[in-house]
């Protein structure tokens, strides 16, 4: 029996409705439980001494003064931890040629970026640990720092890891069709360079971990702010030599992740190692400077790109040369080559064209390692693609919406394979564009823009179509050898009073996972969502799963929950049929009651069934299955990824005297397949858009040429605040994936993917009459004024 999603009056119709999140009330009452809120008996604190130099040989470590601080218990060097914890190498077999040296929890003889952990000081209080850390003396012999991406491969640039031969971590060239021929014969070719700045996630809760090791039981318990508890279980087990069954990772409330908390961090592994050595709970909470120097960075790309079009605006070719610097190590276990690889996979994504060439060059440098951050590679690929398309439109005098309509895959063209060899099951670019035109009233907005200009106001409209990669299969990591689960599981259980518990391998970081699961399970079983208690984030009790990343929670975790819930429903009905001596096929469960399917007449409450099964099983026929616990797992098989699509628009005003950009309004039409909870999806998109707007206007990590990070505080690294952000209008087209009964694809990254490009195009729409153009993010007043020729030098 499949669910009649199209019928809003169907029984138990919770999928597709806005229901409140079950776990939000505790958060608004300050009753969340984040890692730093947890205090365990005999708990100690660790503080790290970090490298103040970008590249230096460690020639001496003096820990004696630190040991004299009252409260300091132990001081560890990298060599001490290396005796207990094995190193890791962050490569994936399917990213051919990717290389990275072995990495330890703390530096051994050489520090390779400012912030790399070198010494750990453990004390009874955090203040004492920090005081001890301040007294540790480390001598460094300076080594040359490699900081510039574009010259990292030059013969004259020192090689960071001599064993690796050069500073090239990874390079991939993809070619389809004949790009050179298309470029040489095209009606118009537009060339541009783009830059996206180095970002970091700035989760409000810093990275946090509390690890306990009980030697008597051989059991490790890690309370960890993470997106992937099972992945961390595997990592701790492997590198600390413990069976996986004896590593329990508990992930309670997490104060923001956005991809930052899905990686293996040396200081967190060091904390677990120290717990194993000391046999007691050890807590590490990053402070804000540590967050800036050691949370992964991302998006530090420089790109040269070309687009060729014919006189009708048809795209003939796209040619992309992308460079990115990833720091001294590829980050374990997802690697730091994925972002560049995504740029190659995603450029030109919405468009039906034949000739495509893209190369990414990923180099080592002495800066904080980069890795996957919300919308991995998408904001870069969308900025390149949509920037080029707008420039081509301007070059041939065509409206930016019209040129897109002429090139986007037709809505009935699917399935198709793109020139980047991405397979699309079903997208809705045209329907989405139509809806966008309607909600933003494009023509009226153009009229408003013209009217504003008469009053001397430079306003611009920017459009950005995009695709988004969601619901990843093992093609993302598993085939490369990483022990990262692409499948996910859910166990659903009916308790004696008829209430339901669902245990899921996907996790909650605030996006609403638990609400989504409660709705899906409620509809699948036939109870109200308030009767469903969802448990996530505990490797000892939930089925094995991947957690939450790459917008997989609803699509993968939701489907596993639906299948488990429906299995529980049929187990319940099998028992009910025996109790009522009825035909199972004529019974249904609605709002916690067994009912007659045809008439809807109540036959028995679930509570009664629970009473009989759990306490009077003797009254049921011998041999009748009474399994009121069901587990199902789900993995996508037909497509490597479920692509979604959408289109965003930005309306801005540029003050040409000051260079200040004001965001007037923002729109997004998005197709994530089945929408399970409209409010939560919309809020994911709004939050994602604002992260993208931050990248467009404010966010940029600065380094000097010696590799010193210059803006490691929230006062200096600007993120969007309430006052500058616009209201956002969100709408949907729904093209469910056929891979699952639920039909859900991901929605968490779409906002971030398209917003920067929409803003860039809007600014350039405003500046074009003045002959100015910006392509280097963030679009600060200074960059705007430079583009206008107001500032030189």
């Amino acid at each position: 029996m499949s669910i009649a999603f199209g019928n809003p009056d169907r029984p138990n119709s919770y999928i597709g409705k806005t229901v409140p999140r079950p776990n939000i009330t505790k958060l608004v009452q300050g009753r969340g439980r984040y890692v730093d809120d947890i205090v365990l008996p005999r708990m100690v604190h660790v503080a790290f001494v970090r490298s103040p130099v970008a590249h230096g040989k460690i020639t001496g470590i003096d820990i004696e003064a630190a040991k004299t601080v009252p409260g300091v218990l132990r001081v560890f060097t990298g060599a001490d931890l290396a005796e207990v914890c094995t190193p890791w190498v962050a490569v994936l077999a399917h990213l051919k040629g990717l290389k990275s040296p072995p990495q330890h929890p703390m530096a051994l003889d050489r520090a390779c970026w400012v912030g790399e952990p070198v010494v750990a000081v453990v004390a009874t209080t955090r203040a004492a640990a920090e005081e001890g850390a301040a007294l540790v003396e480390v001598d460094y012999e300076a080594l040359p720092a490699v900081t510039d991406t574009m010259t990292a491969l030059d013969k004259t640039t020192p090689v960071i890891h001599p064993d690796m031969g050069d500073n090239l971590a990874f390079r991939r060239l993809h070619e389809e069709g004949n790009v050179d021929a298309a470029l040489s014969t095209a009606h118009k070719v537009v060339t541009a360079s783009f830059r996206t700045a180095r970002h970091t996630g700035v989760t409000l809760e810093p990275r946090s971990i509390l690890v306990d090791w009980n030697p008597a039981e051989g059991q490790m318990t890690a309370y960890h702010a993470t997106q992937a508890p099972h992945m961390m279980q595997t990592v701790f087990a492997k590198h600390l030599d413990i069976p996986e069954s004896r590593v329990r990772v508990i992930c309670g409330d997490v104060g923001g992740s956005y991809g930052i908390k899905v990686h293996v961090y040396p200081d967190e592994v060091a904390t677990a190692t120290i717990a194993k050595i000391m046999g007691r709970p050890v807590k590490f909470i990053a402070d804000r400077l540590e967050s800036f120097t050691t949370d992964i960075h991302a998006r530090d790309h420089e790109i040269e790109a070309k687009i060729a079009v014919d006189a009708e605006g048809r795209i003939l070719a796209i040619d992309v040369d992308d460079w990115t610097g990833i720091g001294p190590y590829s980050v374990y276990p997802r690697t730091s080559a994925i972002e560049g690889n995504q740029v190659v996979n995603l450029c030109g994504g919405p468009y039906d064209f034949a000739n495509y060439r893209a190369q990414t060059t990923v180099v080592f440098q002495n800066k904080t390692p980069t890795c996957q951050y919300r919308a991995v590679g998408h904001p870069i690929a969308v900025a390149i693609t949509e920037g080029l398309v707008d420039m081509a439109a301007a070059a041939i005098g065509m409206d930016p919406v019209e040129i897109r309509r002429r090139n986007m895959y037709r809505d009935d063209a699917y399935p198709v394979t793109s020139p980047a060899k991405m397979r699309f099951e079903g997208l809705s670019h045209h329907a989405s564009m139509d809806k966008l035109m309607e909600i933003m009233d494009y023509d009226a907005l153009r009229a408003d823009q013209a009217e504003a200009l008469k009053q001397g106001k430079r306003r611009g409209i920017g459009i950005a179509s995009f695709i988004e990669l969601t619901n990843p299969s093992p093609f993302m990591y598993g085939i490369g050898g990483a022990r990262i689960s692409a499948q996910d599981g859910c166990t659903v259980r009916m308790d004696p009073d008829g209430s339901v518990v669902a245990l899921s391998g996907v996790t909650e970081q605030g996006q609403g996972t638990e609400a989504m699961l409660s709705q899906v399970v409620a509809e699948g079983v036939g109870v109200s969502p308030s009767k469903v208690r969802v448990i996530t984030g505990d490797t000892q009790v939930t089925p094995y799963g991947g957690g939450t990343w790459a917008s997989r929670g609803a699509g993968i975790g939701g489907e596993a929950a639906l299948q488990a819930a429906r299995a529980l429903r049929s187990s319940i009905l099998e028992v009910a049929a025996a109790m009522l001596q009825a035909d199972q096929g004529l019974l249904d469960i609605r709002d916690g009651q067994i009912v007659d399917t045809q008439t809807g007449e109540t036959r028995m409450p679930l509570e009664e069934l629970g009473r009989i099964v759990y306490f009077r099983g003797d009254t049921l026929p011998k041999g009748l299955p009474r399994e009121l616990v069901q587990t199902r797992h789900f993995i996508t098989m037909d497509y490597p990824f479920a692509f979604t699509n959408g289109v965003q628009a930005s309306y801005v005003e540029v003050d040409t005297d000051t260079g200040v950009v004001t965001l007037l309004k923002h729109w997004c039409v998005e197709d994530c397949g089945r929408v399970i909870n409209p409010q939560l999806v919309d809020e994911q998109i709004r939050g994602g858009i604002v992260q993208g707007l931050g990248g467009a206007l404010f966010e940029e990590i600065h380094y000097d040429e010696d590799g010193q990070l210059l803006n490691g505080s929230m006062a200096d690294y600007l993120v969007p605040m309430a006052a500058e952000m616009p209201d956002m209008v969100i709408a949907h087209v729904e093209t469910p994936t056929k891979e699952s009964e639920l039909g859900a694809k991901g929605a968490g990254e779409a906002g971030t993917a398209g917003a920067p490009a929409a803003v860039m195009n809007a600014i350039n729409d405003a500046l074009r009459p003045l002959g100015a153009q910006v392509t280097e993010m963030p679009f600060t007043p200074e960059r705007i004024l430079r583009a206008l020729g107001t500032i030189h030098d």
Partner: protein
Amino acid sequence: MTEMFRDKVDVALTVNGEPVEARVPAGQHLIDFLRQTVGLTGAHASCEHGVCGACTVRVNGEAVRGCLMLAAQADGAEVWTVEGLSDSAAIADLQEAFVARNAAQCGFCTPGMLVAAEELLSQGGLPSRAEIREHLSGNYCRCTGYEAIVDAVEDVARARGGEDVARARGGKGAA
């Protein structure tokens, strides 16, 4: 730093309506005192720099950053945190609006955000959306994009002003 933590100061204050007496390190910040000594973990430390507002609590009627004030300075003060404001139901309508509008995602900013929003709401009147945004511009939220928070605060201002806000919030799906 060392002496700041070794020197101790006696303080007596009320926290959430209950008397609290303690001997605190001279350099301890109010947020750490509340979280570690009193056990009130609702307000959070995030930037520890006075920038993000996650540590906002109410001290003598004003929204104050707990990471900029020393515990020693709170001697004799009346301090309210999200826990006390919840128990006393003082901000129940605001909390309900946050739930209905999904104005909290990860929830890390929320306790501070609520205290800051209540400070604006307690001034009465109907602040414009721009005024709400301006008032909250010292409270950083990385999850929501702010619009839901602005909506929730606006709804409460209207409701407290006697307006009927049962009207559905368009597509934003207030429950």
